[in-house]
């Protein structure tokens, strides 16, 4: 895959504040690439540097191999869909979309052809004469998309474009965005704080935290093999226990955590015996039973603390004898009687459900362990 955009050791400081810290990665042609992280993680700053609204303090940004770090936004062949759309209120939908080609002195006939074509792609042809204020949120969103795509940019930058829409419309637009991306074949760089959105839409995701790129990979690899405790906690839900390696044999390890000896796999972190680590188990991999589970499984006794009905599954919050919290998402087909807080149960999981991660920078708290990702 040919790289369209290269971020080469880019650092951005605002005074003493480091917004982006030595980021290096490449984005390939036709890729749907997401930058994911909580607010203030540096994802929007990175996007604004690619667009040209900010300049890197150090490092280089290359567009198709050419360093554009000091090139102003109006001379870069990338376009942005802004969070609040930023449609020109004094222009019709058609004129909004035509703004790009007109700015670049594209001949009139060609401009008209492109605008009509793009309005068709976003299915707004019959709204061409309307003003932005006369459109719904979803329609405004599609105008912003058409306006940004009409210049045929090398990459389309999207800054939390679905943030202002309600849940139902978001899901429709996620689908629409994917369709349009397939249709035009342009690289999409998508900034979001919504991990579900990133997992659903992206070819690859860069997870960012406090200015650092924590991990880059496909949605599956990031979910199954997170490299840090932050990534594990931010993408999906995770049981995370501090522990210590007692035995290591190739990819397999035995870890003492939550007051028990547990089997685990080392996928991303090379943990030596007696090293401090964090053990991660996804809640949907935790099995809950009344009878003692098979001996080849990692297993612990636990006490039920809380049950939450969540539609397709029930979330069980439990505690080990060592007072470590355990969360399990259990489907309705699980053969369990009506559990109540205080009931004793067994929790278990297979070896490949547990992943060894580096120790957490800060001590984990119970609240963080069960926090929604």
């Amino acid at each position, binding site marked *: 895959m040919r790289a369209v955009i290269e971020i080469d050791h880019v650092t951005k400081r605002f005074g003493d504040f480091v917004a982006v810290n030595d980021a290096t990665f490449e984005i390939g042609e036709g890729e749907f690439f997401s930058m994911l992280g909580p607010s203030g993680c540096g994802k929007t700053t990175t996007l604004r540097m690619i667009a040209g*609204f900010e300049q890197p303090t150090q490092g280089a940004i290359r567009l198709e191999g050419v360093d554009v770090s000091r090139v102003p936004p109006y001379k870069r062949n990338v376009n*942005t869909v802004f969070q609040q759309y*930023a449609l020109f*209120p*004094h222009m019709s939908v058609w004129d909004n979309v035509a703004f790009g080609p007109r*700015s670049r002195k594209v001949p009139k006939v060609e401009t008209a052809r492109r605008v009509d074509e793009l309005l068709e792609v976003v299915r707004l042809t019959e709204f061409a004469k309307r003003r*932005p*204020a006369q459109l719904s949120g979803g329609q405004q969103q599609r105008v912003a998309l058409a*306006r940004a795509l009409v210049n045929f940019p090398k990459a389309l930058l999207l800054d939390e474009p679905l943030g202002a829409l309600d849940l139902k419309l978001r899901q429709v637009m996620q689908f629409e965005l994917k369709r349009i991306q397939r249709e035009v074949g342009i690289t999409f760089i998508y900034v979001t704080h919504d991990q579900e959105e990133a997992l659903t839409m992206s070819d690859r995701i860069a997870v960012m935290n406090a200015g650092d790129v924590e991990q880059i990979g496909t949605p599956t690899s990031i979910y199954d093999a997170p490299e840090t405790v932050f990534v594990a906690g931010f993408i999906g839900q995770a049981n995370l226990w501090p522990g210590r390696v007692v035995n290591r044999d190739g990819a397999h390890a035995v870890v003492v955590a939550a007051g028990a000896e547990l089997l685990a796999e080392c996928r991303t972190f090379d943990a030596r015996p007696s090293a401090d680590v964090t053990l991660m188990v996804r809640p949907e991999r935790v099995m809950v039973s009344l009878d003692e589970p098979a001996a080849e499984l990692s297993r612990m006794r636990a006490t039920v603390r809380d049950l939450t009905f969540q539609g397709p599954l029930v979330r069980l919050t439990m505690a080990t004898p060592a007072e470590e919290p355990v969360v399990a998402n259990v489907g309705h087909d699980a053969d369990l009687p009506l559990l109540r807080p205080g009931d004793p149960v067994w929790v278990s999981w297979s070896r490949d459900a547990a992943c060894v991660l580096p120790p957490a920078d800060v001590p984990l708290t119970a609240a963080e362990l069960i926090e929604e990702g």
Partner: protein
Amino acid sequence: MSAPPAPTALAQDARSSASGLAVLGRGGPPPWLRRAGRIGLAVVAFGTLLYLFIPIVVVVVFSFNEPQGKYNYVWNQFSLDAWTDPFRYEELRDALVFSFQVAAVVTVISAVLGTLMAIAMVKYRFRAKGVIGTILILPLTMPEVVLGFSLLTLFVSVNWARGFVTIVIAQVMFSVSYVATTVRARVRGFDWGLEEAALDLGSPPWRTFLRVTLPLILPGVIAAALLTFALSLDDFIITYLNSGKDTTFPIQVWTTKKSRVPPQINVFSTAILVASIAIALLGVYLTNRRAKKLGA
């Protein structure tokens, strides 16, 4: 530790006074007092309007007067003479034309400078921004005589002949403050994200300003320009001090009033008044139409 009794006492006080108010509210003042209040309010309101409009009405009415002698001070009889021959007095006509020329030039210069200042004040952060903001409103609060006289001193000391140019300089000096303050209110509501969007789409900064920023702040600029035009026509003190031998309309009225006050003065004043009202109404109409279109 003993709790001070004060809070309880206070609370009781508040409660009793509240109930006292409630009793008053339920009963209300007696009907005669209410009616007296309504009549009193009407008298004050009507009196205020009268106070504001009588001078204007007098100006308009006396434009239709045929005065006895040279002074249009006493009602004699209805006549259209002054309206059918408004340019009878050459010096009055020349002064009016001169005033319009000055106003046009001052309006253009002030509108451009003031708008740019307003944008700078809102968009950018820079050193001494607060100080500049204060200096900007100084001409609005400083006595005109001080402003006019200090300018005159400057022009005299550099030996610059007073006339059209010095009048324009003097008027621009205070007009810029009005424009900058008026336009700034509009610019504060401008979404700078729109400028970024335009730049992002390949529009260079100057084109972005002409196609996006200016059209959206234009209502504020036009309002400021109209205000400037009116202020320029109207200004006496600063203009008089820096006019040399040139005469604007107000100066002409002032200097001829010793020898003659013809009804033509009232005719011009009435015409300007009607034009101002027409422009104001047009402005309201256009603003409403635009607001509907932009959905703002």
